[in-house]
């Protein structure tokens, strides 16, 4: 092994007297790539921020962090500023909010160069162009003048990588760098990250909840749980023969699509019968953009471009596609939250596209949204949240019995009805959201990315719950996700959407096993796999 670059020894982080990180120790050699795996609350981000000296003010770190022979804990703020962005740099999860919205990209990349290398503005600007070029952004000389909102998610994260590597750091810390990106983009960005780190002889700490991502990039891995290290070692050994129960659990939670290169063909579902519950015919949804200049014609965005489909009673119907492909628009139109520009949508005999009085529809179709934090009113009690659909649908009387039944159905104790959403974890909140959706006893449940905001192990539990509820309440389910593995697991039939149109449809096993379009194929090949092969897809 190469010379030691970083030695973290008995790191403890606490807020007041509550420990958040306890006794974390590890070392990192020059040019080595280490993965830190853990679910939310495991302390992985706090560990990273401790190394950067950027912990929030109310947190205290103790122990020792030796970087290149210097003790970082207790180093003065001035000295830390010399280290940050120069010898150690960081890449954050959400490039949209991590970049300054009102400063041009080039200027943001040039900033550490001027600060640490004393380059003039002109030299730094030239270097920024070169850096953008090296992370694979085309037309870098004009892109340096762009603002963050003018770039795509992938381009923004490439720009973040360029910024982190500007001063040729010895260590790059990447905190969930691709979690916010589409799979195909994730594969490319991870490729760039690895290539740039290697080209710069930098060491890398990659923090993520995604095991396949870690296995593709890193040589060693550290598994954190509740602020302590449960296991560490070479990545292939830890994932191949996990020694700890928790690691085993994490490895088992990796969806089957990510463990093998060949998607096992799912048995074909029973042929659909009867009349469709949902019937979508040639639906278009166009948005007219405001003109940027007087002489330009107004731009029209076709969010949906001639979509037709039938969903039959009792099936679980998957909708996959990248962000911007029209998945959520389709869902919103099916429950009447948006009106289509043209075309018809009929749900259980109710013409949703006419959209006069949609109240009868609320008894039939309900929706579960992605973000369980944002979709529950923080100032309403759980019981009121769940009973609200009943009240607004005019069902009189005391709903407390119904609320108890529903809470029980989603495996939550009945006595939480008096509490508020912030007291619950993401997974628990999503259960509450599901209970609310089930309140009017719908026949159709539309779930828009219901598990995307949840930790891997919570995802598994929530998916199992949805499967069980589907049987118990005899639901028809529409399951929308960018995550093919999840759809593969839960759905029988699926459509693949690209730019507002359905490009492929059929049984899940057939579509995922023998994709007929290159788009579907690239979606499948980009799924991170434990063998790491997706990076070269």
């Amino acid at each position, binding site marked *: 092994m190469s010379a030691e670059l970083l030695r973290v020894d008995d790191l403890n982080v606490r807020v007041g007297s509550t420990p958040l990180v306890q006794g974390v120790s590890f070392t990192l050699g020059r040019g080595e790539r280490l993965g830190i795996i853990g679910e939310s609350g495991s302390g992985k981000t706090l560990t990273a921020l401790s190394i*950067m000296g*950027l912990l929030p003010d109310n947190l205290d770190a103790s122990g020792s962090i030796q970087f290149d022979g210097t003790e970082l804990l207790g180093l003065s*703020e*001035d000295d830390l*500023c*010399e*280290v*940050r*962005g*120069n010898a150690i*740099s*960081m890449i*954050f999860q*959400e490039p949209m*909010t*991590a*970049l*300054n*919205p*009102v*400063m041009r990209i080039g200027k943001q990349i040039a*900033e*550490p160069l001027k*600060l*640490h290398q004393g380059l003039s503005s002109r030299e730094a600007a030239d270097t920024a162009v070169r850096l953008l070029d090296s992370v694979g952004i085309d037309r870098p000389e004009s892109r340096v003048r762009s*603002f963050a*909102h*003018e770039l795509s998610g992938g381009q923004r994260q490439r720009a*973040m990588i360029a*910024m982190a590597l500007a001063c040729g750091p010895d260590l790059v810390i990447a905190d969930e760098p691709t979690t916010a990106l589409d799979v195909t983009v994730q594969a490319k960005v991870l490729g760039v990250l690895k290539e740039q780190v290697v080209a710069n002889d930098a060491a890398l700490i990659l923090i993520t909840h995604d095991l396949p991502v870690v296995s593709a990039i890193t040589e060693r891995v550290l598994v954190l749980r509740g602020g302590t290290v449960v296991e560490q070692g070479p990545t292939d050994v830890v994932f191949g023969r996990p020694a700890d129960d928790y690691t085993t659990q994490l490895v088992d939670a990796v969806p089957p699509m990510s463990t093998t290169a060949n998607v096992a063909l799912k048995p074909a579902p029973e042929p659909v019968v009867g009349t469709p519950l949902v019937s979508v015919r040639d639906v278009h949804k166009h948005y007219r*953009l*405001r*003109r*940027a*200049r*007087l002489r330009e014609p107004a731009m029209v965005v076709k969010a949906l471009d001639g979509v037709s489909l039938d969903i039959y009673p009792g099936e679980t119907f998957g909708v996959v596609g990248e962000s911007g492909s029209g998945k959520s628009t389709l869902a919103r139109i099916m429950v009447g939250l948006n009106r289509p520009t043209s075309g018809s949508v009929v749900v259980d005999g109710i013409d949703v596209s006419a959209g006069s009085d949609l109240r009868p529809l609320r008894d039939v179709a309900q929706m579960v949204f992605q973000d369980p934090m944002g979709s529950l009113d923080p100032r309403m009690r759980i019981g009121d949240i769940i009973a609200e659909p009943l009240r607004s649908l005019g069902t009189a009387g005391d709903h407390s019995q119904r609320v108890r039944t529903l809470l029980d159905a989603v495996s939550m104790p009945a006595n939480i009805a008096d509490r508020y959403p912030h007291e619950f974890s993401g997974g628990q909140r999503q259960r509450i959201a599901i209970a609310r959706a089930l309140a009017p006893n719908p026949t159709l449940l539309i779930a828009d990315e219901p598990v995307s905001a949840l930790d891997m192990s919570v995802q598994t539990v929530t998916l199992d719950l949805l499967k069980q509820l589907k049987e118990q309440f005899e639901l028809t389910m529409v399951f929308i996700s960018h995550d093919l593995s999840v759809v593969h697991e839960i759905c029988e039939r699926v459509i693949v959407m690209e730019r507002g149109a359905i490009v492929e449809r059929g049984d899940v096993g057939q579509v995922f096993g023998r994709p007929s379009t290159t788009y579907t194929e690239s979606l499948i090949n980009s799924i991170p796999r434990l063998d790491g092969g997706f990076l070269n897809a």
Partner: protein
Amino acid sequence: MYVVRRVGVFLVSLLTASILVFVVMSILPGDPARVILGTQATPEAVESLREELGLNRSLPTQYLDWLSHAVRGDLGESVFTGQAIGPQVANRLKITAPLALMALTFTVLLSFPLGVFAAARHRQAGDNIVSVISQLGLAIPAFWAGLMLVTLFAVRLRWFPAGGFPGWGDSFFGSLKALLLPALSLAIVQSAIITRYVRSAVLETLREDYIRTARSKGLTRSQALWRHGLRNAAIPVLTILGLQFAALLSGTVVIESVFVLPGLGRMLLDGITRRDLPLVQGGAFVIVAFILLINLIVDLTYRLLDPRVGAR
């Protein structure tokens, strides 16, 4: 396109405001003809004067007539003095506009540093002191602040005049000096409000991810605040500043009386007590136009600060 749209909104608002001002004035009790002729006048005399003044025509006709003159700067004549209102308003505006703009400048100069200072020392002594000061500022009415300033700087120290206005032509610096204390009294109240907005906007900005990114690049706390935080924090404050300008202008009515300044506010006050409706109408319209103009400038500045505005 954004600029075209904003200017369009400005013109439509201006037109709407002119209609509102006109309608409100005509609903108000008090017939201008009767006011001019006094209580002893015969109904016939009043009627003939109404005809002469065009008051017996339909409301829309009167409005269009008034508007077509107003766009050429002719706001009619005062029923009390018989003088043309346009030039009179223009003259008064030469005092009120600089007074308001000076007050606005003082507000920015006071509130931005104080707000940023308080945010940078969040929950420390400095923050609390600023908080107490701004509470005090909020509680003080502008006219009382004016009186205190006069007592201190005019009566005791004799640095500034206690009131009156020499005129820009006669003494430029004297005029500036005469506006200083009134502008300051207006600014004290406004700064108290704006300081709180600046403080919370900066605090909000400091919690943003891009500030953390900036610090991960090696910027110190204050470098991150100055280079990345301020411009972002200024965006929401600017909107408030535009809205508060209306409050500031209405404050001039009182302050001009306190400092005996012959400004637009004083003119309006006099016009109202004399039931000089055309004068009030003209004055009110010009004040509304001024407020709309400032908000147009705010909207256009917004575009300069935030590249996302008008991009879609």
